């Protein structure tokens, strides 16, 4: 991201759709991970996805509930992250240079696919 463009994190990153190299929808940008460089300037290190990232931003009972359930199921408080190095384009969508299967960010999708959807005949046929 060397091009001299200014991005408003809230406007241009948060809640935008993330798609992978094949155009598959990955998630929304549920939250961002920031770090400080040596000069004390914040920079984005990762896109955080899933209920554990979204819950605190949703707030209220529902948000806490969402975070707690996801943390319990996953056995960890930390949301899945997509390293910002994977991002190749920031536009209407945030495009990644890798495939979603190479990232470990879709445990619920994978679980539902394995336990439910792929057991139904015809799940492998586009209609």
């Amino acid at each position, binding site marked *: 991201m060397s091009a001299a463009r200014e991005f408003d994190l809230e406007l241009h990153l948060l809640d935008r759709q993330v798609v992978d190299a094949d155009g598959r929808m990955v998630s929304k940008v549920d939250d961002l991970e920031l770090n400080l460089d040596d000069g004390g300037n914040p920079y984005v290190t990762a896109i955080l996805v899933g209920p554990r990232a979204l819950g605190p931003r949703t707030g209220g009972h529902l*948000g806490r509930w969402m975070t707690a359930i996801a943390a319990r199921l996953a056995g960890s408080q930390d949301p899945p992250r997509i390293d910002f190095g994977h991002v190749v384009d920031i536009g209407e969508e945030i495009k990644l240079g890798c495939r979603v299967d190479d990232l470990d960010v879709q445990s619920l999708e994978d679980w539902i696919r394995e336990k439910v959807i792929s057991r139904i005949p015809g799940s492998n046929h586009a209609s």
Partner: protein
Amino acid sequence: MKRIFGVALGILTAIGGFVDIGDLVTNALVGSRFGLSLVWATLVGVVGICLYAEMSGRVAAITGRGTFDLVRERLGPRVGMANLVASFLVTLLTFAAEVGGVALALELATSVNYLLIVPIVGVAIWFVIWRVKFSVLENTFGLLGLVLIVFGVALWKLNPDWGDLFRQISRPHKPTDESLPVYFYYAIALFGAAMTPYEVFFFSSGGVEEKWTKKDIITERVNVFVGFPLGGLLSVAIAAVAALVLLPANIQVDTIGQVGLPVAVAAGKIALAIAILGFVAATFGAALETGLSCGYTVAQYYGWQWGKFVRPKEASRFHLVVLMALIAAVGTVLTTIDPVKITEYSVVFSAVALPLTYFPILVIANDPDYMGTETNGRISNFLASIFLVIIVVASVAAIPLMLYTKAGQ
């Protein structure tokens, strides 16, 4: 030639797909109680749905994104979530009403108790959503729904005084035995039935499913501005035959059979059979649309892969949401709550939820960041703003009127 065929098909589908259980029941019910004095509410609703469906379709064509996708982006996770919960529940309630409607229509045709038919309807809906191609699903039921034109034939056969009908529509008089709050309660119900939020979710997501681009905007506009008003005319015909046959006989519509009764009286048995076929097609088609819309809204909010354009395996969470919504809808009907009652509440709650859907669409359709040069024109913004006021008034007034009139009694 292919292009003309596509446009014609789109128009026909839009006409046939316009009417759902909410339109059938509410228009017949209102016709049998208020004559033609509330047709204005349907007409206002039709103009509204045309305006906002066109916007959502244009947004889908330009951005390739469904309505709820952008709702989250514009409103943020918190307000977006509140919006999602409300929109999802209303769509689920409508889904249950459509499922019940299919079963009731099949009960009319077979005399088998509708509760026995409901599970079969559930399986059929799931099978179609799981296996049938999006464009086939949309076109088949839209085209079959066209047979509801039989209501127009029935109206013509009743040989009414057309001048008088026109006077009743253009100079509405509230019937003296109905109170003003009840009159406006049903105006809101008709408005909600015409503008049901799922229509926009489905229309915009359908645009993405069929991979619309900028050059499809013309087709999309013709579908909406020609198809929807003609579909709205079907709604008016349903109300008009009820007004001509049921109102004088003092019959108040509270079953699907009574919706079709005027057709039987005016045009005979075969016409009634055609009307019942139309009921099945219209409600089954709308059940598919509402069921898919349950999945579209949730998946688009969370950014999950959705849609029938990928293999079900690649959109597991989306398909699971649709499946669970179907189970919930079938379960609701199996509680033996009268589907006609579910329908009456679903249209009113639709009216309550309208601003949640329509306000973000108006905002996005005006945002050059998303729309480039295809933002709203001045006329469409002027009209849409007027409608936003109407929508908010109807939304705020709906629940108090429902409580005050005991749901229109």
